[in-house]
C-alpha cells in the first residue's frame, strides 16, 4: 500500500459485491432474485480475478502497436474470460429452469414450492 489509495479500493469493491450477493442468496425467496444474486457473486469474483493482474502504468498485453513494453498480466484476463462464459452458461440454464418451475407451479417463490425450503 505504498502509492495511490490508502486502502485497496478495488479489492474493497470486490468484497462489497460478494457480500451483497451472499446476502441476497441467503435472504431472498424469489428464485429470479436468487439467480440475480448468483450473477452478482460471479461478477464480484470476476472483478477480483481481473484486478489481480493490474500493474501500475501497464498497457493491455497485446504487441500490435503497443506504445510501451510494460504490460499488465495476461493470465488473469484469460481466466476472467473463461469464468465469464461459465457464469453466462450457468445463469442461462438456471433461468430456464426457473421458467419451467413457473410453468408448473405458477409461482417463483421458493417457500411455496415443496422442496425448495432450506
Amino acid at each position: 500500500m505504498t502509492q495511490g489509495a490508502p486502502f485497496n479500493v478495488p479489492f474493497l469493491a470486490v468484497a462489497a459485491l460478494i457480500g451483497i450477493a451472499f446476502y441476497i442468496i441467503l435472504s431472498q425467496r424469489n428464485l429470479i432474485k436468487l439467480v440475480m444474486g448468483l450473477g452478482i457473486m460471479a461478477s464480484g469474483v470476476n472483478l477480483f480475478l481481473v484486478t489481480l493482474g493490474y500493474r501500475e502504468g501497464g498497457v493491455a498485453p497485446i504487441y500490435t502497436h503497443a506504445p510501451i513494453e510494460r504490460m499488465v498480466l495476461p493470465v488473469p484476463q484469460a481466466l476472467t474470460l473463461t469464468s465469464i462464459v461459465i457464469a453466462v452458461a450457468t445463469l442461462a440454464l438456471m433461468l430456464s429452469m426457473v421458467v419451467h418451475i413457473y410453468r408448473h407451479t405458477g409461482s417463483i417463490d421458493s417457500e411455496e414450492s415443496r422442496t425448495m425450503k432450506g
Partner: protein
Amino acid sequence: MMSKIVRTISNILSLFIFVYGLYIIIHGHLTPGGGFQGGAVVASGVALLIVAFGSHNIHKSLKEHHLSILESGGALIFIGLAFGGIATVFFYNFLVGSSIFGHIPPSGPNPGDIWTGGVIPFMNLAVGLKVLAGLSAILLVMALATSVMEVEE
C-alpha cells in the same frame, strides 16, 4: 414484432454487427478480442433481430437444430485442432513455423501480421462459430418458450 421503422433499422444494423463480430473473430490473435467476444457480438445481432421481428418469425428461417448442428461442428473443429497436435502433445501448436499461418512476428511491439499464430486463428474461428451458434440457440429457445407462455395466458 415491432414497428416497420425498427425492423428496417435493425435489419441494416444487424449486418454491420455481424461483420464487426467476424472482424473481431478473425483478428483475434492481433487485436483485442477473439472467438468468444466476436461470437457474443454476432449473437447480440441475432438478439436484435429476435427483438425486432419476434421469435416466431425468426424461428421460421432459423431452427434451433440448425444452430445445434453448427455448434457441434464448431466444437468438433476445436477439439479436432487440439487432437491435431497429439503427435507431440495434445494442444500442441503444430502450425507455428509451417507455411499456413506460421509466420513468427518479431519480438516486441510491431504492426502485426495476419499470417501468424499457427492454430490460434483456426481455433478462434471454431470457437467463434460455436459461441455464436450456442448463444443464439439459447436466446432463440428462451424467447420462443417465454412468448408461448404469453400467448397462453
